[in-house]
């Protein structure tokens, strides 16, 4: 079999890939920010020590973590239109899905990060007369975020890879871009190879950057 990579040129990238890459990146960024926001709420619920807050949060997190992401994507694509009462595009559905799904994973990272802060810090805050929310906002969370930054970023790289699974509902992400281009030009083999190289270059450089950051943080601490 002869490979012909001449189809992978700027026209193809501009015509098929950039649109998908943009969506993949946007999905990753929104899901990360939203996931961190809701994940922090879930983590605080789980650490609140109150059963009526802890139990539903634990149910949600463990439930999300025991179902394959593809099934979660299919579920949301099925249920969200029912709940909001009108049809919804695959792209919007993916955004809602990934925020909800990543919140569960980020909350576990948050919980570990918060628990890594020595109890003495919390007691010191209390001794200074801080309220629970002040203590969390000013003492615990800033340190916890710093401790878990490398893990959070690694999870974001995994999230970027996972965005390719929106294939299940036909949303147009980077992989779909290569998929469509390969089929249009009758060169699927080259297109899939190019997709693998593109993902590898992006994810490898990101994980290299995270590794460097990890080293930097570790020295300061």
């Amino acid at each position, binding site marked *: 079999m002869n490979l012909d990579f001449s189809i992978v040129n700027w026209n193809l990238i501009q015509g098929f890939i950039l649109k998908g890459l943009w969506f993949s990146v946007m999905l990753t960024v929104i899901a990360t920010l939203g996931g961190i926001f809701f994940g922090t709420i879930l983590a605080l619920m789980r650490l609140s020590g109150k059963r009526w807050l802890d139990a539903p949060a634990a149910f949600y997190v463990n439930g999300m973590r025991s179902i394959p992401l593809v099934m979660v994507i299919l579920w949301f694509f*099925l249920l969200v239109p029912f709940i909001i009462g009108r049809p919804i595009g695959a792209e919007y559905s993916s955004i809602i899905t990934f925020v909800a799904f990543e919140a569960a994973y980020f909350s576990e990272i948050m919980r570990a990060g918060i628990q890594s802060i020595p109890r003495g810090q919390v007691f010191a805050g209390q001794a200074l007369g801080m309220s629970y929310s002040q203590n969390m906002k000013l003492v615990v969370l800033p340190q916890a975020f710093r401790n878990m930054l490398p893990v959070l970023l690694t999870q974001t790289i995994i999230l970027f890879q996972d965005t390719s699974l929106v294939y299940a509902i036909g949303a147009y992400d980077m*992989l779909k871009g290569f998929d469509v281009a390969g089929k249009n030009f009758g060169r699927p083999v080259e297109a899939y190879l190019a997709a693998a190289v593109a993902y590898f270059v992006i994810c490898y450089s990101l994980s290299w950057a995270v590794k460097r950051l990890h080293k930097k943080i570790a020295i300061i601490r």
Partner: protein
Amino acid sequence: MLNMDWAVFCRDTLTGDVVAGCLGEGRDITYLNWIFSAWGWTVSVSLTALLLALVAGSLIGVIRTLPDSPWLVRFGDAWVELFRNVPLLVQIFLWYHVVPALIPPMKNLSPFVLVVCALGFFTSARIAEQLRAGIQALPRGQRYAGMALGFTTPQYYRYVILPMAYRIIVPPLTSESMNIFKNSSVAFAVSIPELTQYALQVGEETSRPIEIYLAVTLLYVISALVINRIMAFVEKRAQVPGFVAAGTGAGGH
């Protein structure tokens, strides 16, 4: 939406008639028969891939810790980076569409084998990383003690290092085994008739997606729970009295 119709599982897949007793015979199968066969595919893909991942992952994990073999270590590192930085779905497409096109003898392999390769090698990179961490978590003295006793390299790995390293990594291996069941769902993209493919196809065919998805989701959760219990049993049986795995001690970072 809330009036569910569970009788959908008793319907014949060809005629759509409800079959008495819910299970068809011979060629007349019901959707209940079909979901069990789909579950079987999920389980067999996952377990075969897990086996491949354990073998390949152990091999790569070990060569990444070998002393005095920089090229083997580099090969192991490259393996891990390669399989970790490409999304699983892309890897499945590579095995399914690209590998048979580039390597003619692979053309005759069944989709099952190709998907098992994809899932197995993808997971092998993660297991290799865990095993490397497990081996490096052991005190260096263990390796030296083995050398001092005159063990060859394979011997001290076999009798000194690996027995402890594997015990250390049982918890991450547990989550990896559960992950492999979840990840097997990605095989839907290349038409392996496993649970997710079933959900997509039958959900559409019967116009009863909620019941179908609920059943499929339940089967995934049950699979994960069973694996979790089996690994907990393994962890308990393999425990060395008095030895606390490095990861579980004083909560580090």
